């Protein structure tokens, strides 16, 4: 008997599932177990309170301590047995015993008085090679990720002939028959049979068996077995996060998590995308989820002044992430109380594993290109001049005069391709190195990373440096210390977006082609864009944002008794944005005062203390309680500095010391705090019925003292139907679980002092201080309450089709809203709790194993679908609120567009027409007579992600399709690019290709593009918001395509590496839009408005993973 059992940790695949089963060492499994078990025995479970390694004798002690069973066996029977690795969690006794006896040829029987009798059975005599013909087959067993499986059992079918895989997943077996079928098994995996006829070398891939696993998922403040969990939580498949070229893990969530909508607003690398879990939870308070990294509720999003698209969370290296769990319903989030309302994203970073130190190296390099379909490409000079001449003719001028006039003012020989000028191919590279290892008591994980990405727009780039160390130390049997610290440094070069003169994207889409970039002498043409030559600005100006992040946590855990433990955690989250902006003295913003320099410094220190008391109570076999009592306090301090000086002298020197005029200096400070207590109990009845209840009390500094504290809570129920007798033995339905929950959580993300009546300082006059009335008091301002109801079914059919279907209905009451008020108040908004809103929807997540062929070909499909509908159900006084281009009214959804309807061009005269009102029965050519009305929502009817993964031997191929369906997208800048001639010769008066291709030209033309008229006042004015620029936002995107090849084990062995993988990846390769007129990329952020931001780009890269 070959026993290899010294080191652990070599078999834990990269994707760290918390599978209790898989942490046991598996050895020879030719043992035939004789189960003489009763029902109750098979249901009985014990709780392993912490990860540990114990002898078989100690296993019996554990079982005896927790159950009524007693063991009877010959002394010394297990003296030489290897130790058993136990992982924290819950495990059925039968399985625990099975593992403990895995190496030994024993049988056990449960007698009437709950005594388990263990006896040795005679060693089986394996047929020796002498007795057989020598058909020898060797091979490798891996999991579906290609990780070698150590200790997998290989048995010749129908015989007792067997062996197991070694450390590298390799095995070799001599067979009695060349028609032999091998049975390959591994606990927690689907057993596979395979014909080996004529083969001498085979590779076997085993797939996880969902039914057999009792996965542990990471939940709030704890871990819990998946089967007993009553909440809606999704563990993100880290394959979607690893190996992606994206700076932040958030960007990888699109299409991978049902119920989670991710929309990128800006192509700025390192930017914060919009993330909504189960719809829009709030109006004016944040709708962003809470991010918790290793137990720390962290500062997320933008903290910068210049790089306003920056994202503190991008500081976390996706390669350091071991687990991402998205918590969606009340049962999952209520324990986060006032911050759980918009869902919670829990992130756990990688921890060290015991064993030989393993090094992982990942390298990626690639390019990105702008996505700009032909319909969006600006016109050239010839085309534009044609339009201008026509626009003069349409004012009544003769063709000859019009041509003369235009050619006198426009140089047709200049033809600048502004797309070519502003965009570029962006280079990208990323390097990561990590090491992990340790011994029984102390384990470590350490990593460094470097990320460098140029955007597809000139002057925009992003760099990131990361490092992280996680250490776990088991000080004594009872005392465990966890320490982690992550450092990040992000450097962004960004630029202004929207209508800002310095915005290069605006320059690209709006500058006329007859203006050159450079003058004939090679200097910048600063006659354009009010001197804001976009190329010159990139060269001469500085817009630099440096973000520094420290995320540190220390967690101490002490086991007071075997059932009672105390944990205390101290967390520290520090973010600094150090920014500098320089505007050159020659052109652009600094031209009139000798150049301008601005320095910004913004610091946010967030600390959090958590104390947890956990208690497990087992009344008898059927009743298991887990209690959690916690206390938490968090404080966020923010302070900033700003300095502004102008008039520079020394060439090339840009620090403020080189400027002579000191313009402004200021500092600000603010803080907020939360103090909380919480309690959770989960109760398992016969491991079939589960009950979970949570209560939390939060106090926040942000609310008035009268309404400062609030209570939150939830209840959850789950029924594991497969544990019922009628399904217990089903081969069809291998898992079926029904769960439901309801609760209340909250939202307090409204700024620090929103309830107070305030004057704002800083309004100085003539060198003297001044202040202005800035906020109306609202003593009653309080939490927004979010009440989610959830019902879901988890299922697994024939071990091939697994998934989850959920329905949710989420009501937000006491909506925090910045109510527009009459300006006669001296203010235009007032913060109030005004109404109610609901989000309800259906989520479907489906994972299928379509093909799992014996020759190593497999095909897996993951599909998720989310349909959310948002409805405002109550508003103060029932009154609709018009907010810019949206209307918020009862019965409507939050992002309902509200603007006049465009009715195309009058076929008779080419005038733009608008509908008079919502009946759309009458049109007018007077914009002022057109009433605004509802025009549909920016929120999609549904969105879905489909991932297919194909594996053949060492080759893998996968792609992700993302579909966003049924929303509207508004281009507020369409009013400028569709000027219909109103911009005359303005250098920002470029007209779109749509105008060129489709404009009205002569009576009878039926088109939706009006005629062009020089100095047009009828249409093309910047105040004319209308559905002319509102598009159907439906799109289908081939988001990720990945082709990977891993060297076979035979080769990696020779090379002395654990893994060697090379892959190609492409993202945003193809995009299909439903609305062929859309003039922007349809992915524009949740609100559905494009804003001349850096476009989403396509990307190609090659990557290499080596593991030593």
């Amino acid at each position, binding site marked *: 008997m070959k026993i290899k059992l010294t080191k652990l940790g070599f078999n834990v695949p990269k994707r760290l599932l918390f599978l209790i089963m898989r942490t046991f060492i598996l050895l020879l499994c030719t043992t035939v177990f004789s189960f003489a078990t009763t029902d109750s025995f098979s249901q009985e479970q014990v709780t392993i309170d912490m990860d540990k390694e114990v002898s078989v004798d100690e296993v019996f002690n554990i079982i005896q301590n927790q159950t009524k069973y007693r063991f009877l066996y010959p002394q010394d029977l297990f003296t030489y047995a290897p130790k058993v690795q136990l992982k924290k969690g819950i495990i059925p006794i039968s399985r625990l015993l099975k593992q403990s006896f895995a190496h030994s040829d024993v049988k056990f029987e449960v007698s009437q008085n709950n005594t388990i009798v263990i006896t040795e059975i005679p060693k089986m005599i394996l047929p020796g090679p002498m007795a057989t013909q020598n058909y020898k087959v060797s091979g490798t067993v891996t999991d579906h990720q290609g990780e070698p499986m150590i200790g997998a059992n290989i048995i010749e079918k129908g015989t007792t002939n067997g062996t197991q895989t070694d450390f590298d997943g390799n095995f070799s077996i001599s067979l009695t028959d060349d028609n032999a079928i091998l049975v390959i098994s591994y606990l927690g995996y689907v057993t596979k049979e395979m014909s080996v006829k004529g083969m001498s070398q085979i590779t076997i891939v085993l797939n996880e068996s969902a039914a057999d696993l009792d996965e542990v998922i990471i939940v709030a403040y704890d871990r819990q077995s998946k089967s007993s969990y009553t909440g809606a939580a999704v563990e993100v498949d880290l394959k979607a996060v690893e190996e992606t070229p994206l700076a932040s893990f958030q960007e990888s969530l699109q299409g991978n998590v049902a119920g989670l909508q991710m929309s990128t607003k800006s192509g700025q690398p390192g930017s914060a995308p919009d993330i909504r879990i189960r719809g829009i939870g709030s109006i004016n308070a944040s709708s962003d989820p809470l991010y918790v990294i290793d137990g720390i509720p962290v500062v997320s999003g933008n903290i910068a002044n210049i790089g306003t698209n920056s994202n503190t969370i991008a500081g976390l290296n996706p390669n350091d992430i071991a687990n991402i769990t998205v918590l969606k319903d009340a049962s999952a989030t209520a324990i986060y109380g006032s911050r759980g309302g918009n869902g919670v994203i829990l992130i756990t970073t990688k921890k060290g594993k015991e064993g030989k130190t393993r090094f992982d190296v990942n390298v990626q390099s690639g390019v990105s290109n702008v996505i700009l379909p032909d319909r969006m490409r600006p016109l050239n000079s010839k085309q534009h001049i044609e339009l201008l001449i026509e626009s003069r003719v349409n004012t009544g001028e003769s063709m000859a005069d019009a041509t003369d006039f235009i050619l006198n003012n426009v140089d047709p020989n200049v033809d600048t391709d502004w797309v070519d000028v502003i965009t570029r191919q962006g280079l990208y590279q990323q390097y990561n190195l990590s090491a992990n290892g340790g011994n029984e008591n102390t384990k470590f994980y350490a990593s460094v990373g470097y990320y460098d990405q140029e955007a597809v727009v000139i002057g925009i780039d992003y760099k990131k440096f990361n490092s992280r160390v996680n250490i776990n130390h088991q000080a004594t049997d009872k005392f465990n210390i966890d320490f982690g610290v992550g450092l990040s440094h992000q450097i962004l070069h960004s630029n202004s977006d929207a209508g800002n003169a310095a915005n290069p994207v605006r320059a690209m889409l709006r500058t006329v082609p007859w203006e050159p970039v450079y003058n004939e002498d090679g200097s910048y043409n600063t006659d354009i864009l009010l001197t804001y030559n976009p190329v010159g600005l990139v060269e001469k100006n500085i817009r630099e944002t440096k973000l520094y992040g420290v995320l540190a946590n220390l967690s101490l855990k002490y086991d007071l008794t075997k059932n009672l433990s105390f944990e205390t955690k101290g967390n520290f989250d520090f973010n600094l944005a150090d920014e500098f902006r320089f505007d050159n003295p020659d052109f652009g913003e600094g*031209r009139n005062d000798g150049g301008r320099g601005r320095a910004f410094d913004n610091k946010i220190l967030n600390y959090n203390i958590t104390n947890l008391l956990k208690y497990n109570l087992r009344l008898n076999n059927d009743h298991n309680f887990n209690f959690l009592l916690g206390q938490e306090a968090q404080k966020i301090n923010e302070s900033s500095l700003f300095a502004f000086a102008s008039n520079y002298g020394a060439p090339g020197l840009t620090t403020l010391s080189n400027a002579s005029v000191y*313009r402004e200096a200021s500092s*600000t400070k603010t803080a907020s705090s939360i*103090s909380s207590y919480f309690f959770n109990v989960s109760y398992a009845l016969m491991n079939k019925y589960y009950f979970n209840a949570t209560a939390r009390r939060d106090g926040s500094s942000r609310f008035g003292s009268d309404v400062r504290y609030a209570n939150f809570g939830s209840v959850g129920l789950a029924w594991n139907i497969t544990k019922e007798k009628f399904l217990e033995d089903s081969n069809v339905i291998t898992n079926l679980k029904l769960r439901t929950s309801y609760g209340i959580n909250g939202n307090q993300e409204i700024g620090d002092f929103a309830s107070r009546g305030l004057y704002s300082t800083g309004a100085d006059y003539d060198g003297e201080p001044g202040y202005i009335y800035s906020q109306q008091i609202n003593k009653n301002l309080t939490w927004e309450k979010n009440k989610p109801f959830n019902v879901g079914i988890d299922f697994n059919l024939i071990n091939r089709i697994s998934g989850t279907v959920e329905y949710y209905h989420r009501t937000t009451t006491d909506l925090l809203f910045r109510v527009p008020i009459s300006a006669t108040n001296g203010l235009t908004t007032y913060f109030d709790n005004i109404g109610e809103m609901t989000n309800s929807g259906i989520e479907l997540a489906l994972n299928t194993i379509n093909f799992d062929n014996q020759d190593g070909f497999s095909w897996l499909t993951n599909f998720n679908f989310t349909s959310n509908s948002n409805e405002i159900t109550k508003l103060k006084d029932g009154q609709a609120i*018009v907010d810019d281009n949206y209307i918020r009214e009862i019965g409507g959804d939050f992002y309902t567009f509200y603007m006049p309807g465009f009715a195309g061009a009058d076929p008779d005269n080419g005038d733009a027409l608008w509908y008079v009102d919502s009946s759309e029965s009458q049109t007018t050519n007077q914009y002022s007579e057109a009433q605004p009305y509802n025009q549909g929502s920016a929120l999609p009817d549904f969105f879905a992600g489909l991932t297919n993964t194909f594996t053949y031997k060492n080759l893998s191929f996968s792609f992700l399709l993302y579909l966003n369906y049924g929303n509207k997208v508004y281009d507020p800048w369409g009013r400028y690019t569709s000027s219909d001639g109103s911009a005359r010769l303005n250098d*920002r008066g470029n007209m779109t290709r749509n105008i060129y291709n489709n404009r009205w030209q002569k009576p009878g033309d039926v088109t939706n593009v009006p005629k062009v008229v020089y100095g047009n006042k009828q249409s093309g004015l910047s105040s004319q918001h209308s559905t002319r620029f509102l598009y159907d936002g439906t799109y289908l995107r081939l988001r990720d395509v990945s082709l990977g090849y891993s060297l076979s084990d035979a080769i990696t062995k020779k090379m002395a590496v654990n893994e060697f993988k090379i892959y190609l990846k492409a993202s945003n390769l193809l995009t299909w839009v439903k609305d062929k007129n859309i003039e922007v990329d349809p992915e524009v952020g949740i609100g559905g408005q494009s804003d001349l931001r850096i476009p989403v780009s396509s990307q190609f890269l090659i990557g290499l993973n080596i593991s030593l």
Partner: protein
Amino acid sequence: MSITIFSCSDNFLEIDPEQNVPAENAVIDENTLKTALNGVYSELQSSNYYGRSIYVIPELMADNLFLSSRNTGRYLDFDNFVVSERDSYVEGLWIKLYSVLANASRVIEGGEKLKSGSTEQQVLFDQLVGEAYALRALAHFDLVRLFAQPYNFTSDASHLGIPIINQVYNERISPPRDNVKNVYKQINSDIETAINKMSASKKNGKFSVGGAKALAARVALYQEDYDAAITYSTQVINSGTFQLIDHDQYADLWANDFNSESIFEIVNTVSDNSGTNGLGHFFDVKGYADALVPLDIINTYDPDDIRLNAIIQGAKPGAEQDANFVGKFPKGTEHDDNLRIFRLAEQYLIRAEAYAKTEQPTLAQEDLLTVMKRAKPTAVPVTETGEDLMDLILLERRKELAFEGHRLFDLNRNKRNVTMIQSDNKTEESYPNDKFILPIPLSELNANPDMKQNPGY
């Protein structure tokens, strides 16, 4: 663990803002009274008020300015005479003006509650509170002339005015529009209080008795209360506090802060620079140079008229080769100029108009000549009377007060048609005209159910 214990104490959740003052503590002593009053003055610097809009709009929507064929799009709809209720400049004006009203009312209420420690201090308090009254009158007046038809639009001024704000509200309000008559009543009452309370005859950068009287004279003229207009303008002219700048020193009128002709001006320091949103930036060829001066007005000047010096000839890059730029804001793009809201020349013209309309042509001719002679010492006395004299006075107002935000009001309150000049177009818009006043902004209509839109919008 010490933090844990700390967190349990009550003051963990007691955090106060560090850049804000509780509204109830905004005016509690001499110092805070000054600070709150400075806040009101600083609102006047905004590009949504005297910082730009109120100078530009009444000139663009008439014949004194037009937008270059190559412009930044700022105020384009005013130039095109197609202003809509969604216009952001209209909204900006509305919001800023009501902010002045709310803040001034808070200063008044806070200041009047203060107990002075000495007579000297009471005099100071009265001066400061008086300034707030004057600022409130100015903002009401600017609102009513921008958003409501002139006083004489109906015989009893009963047509739609604007909501009056004359107190502090701690609850949200949605007031309806008052009629024009009541708005003027409020303005006059505030001016009277201001004049009574203030003691300073001139105060650099601040309202003074002189400033309040200059305002009173202008208000009276708009209200067609010519006796009051004559009384107040005479008091200003005769006070001896202000003198017209000499012909030779005409440039000083625009270049020198607090010059002898300036009655009330808003101070802009280096740190107030609104940058590209400044008035200078809007006019200067080095800035946007969006608005240009039409030949139509240039041709009204005698070639020797010194006021032509306030118009700069040049070329607009990439557009008009022969362009004329506004030169009344000589610091241009470099530094925002002080904003002269009242100056003595206007008082002469106010009095001239009031005399003319009260059948006192000789006195009117005299005042008119004073202004003309400063512009051109050899100017010959005017002899016209009646409507002709009125035409001359209006023309002189156009020439003297060009680009200072008077033109549209002057024409509308005199029931004149308005010529709209654009870069390649010119149209005559007839009186009465719905579009001679601005629409109530859409955001106000949406937020205030009792608000009524102006006809025609």
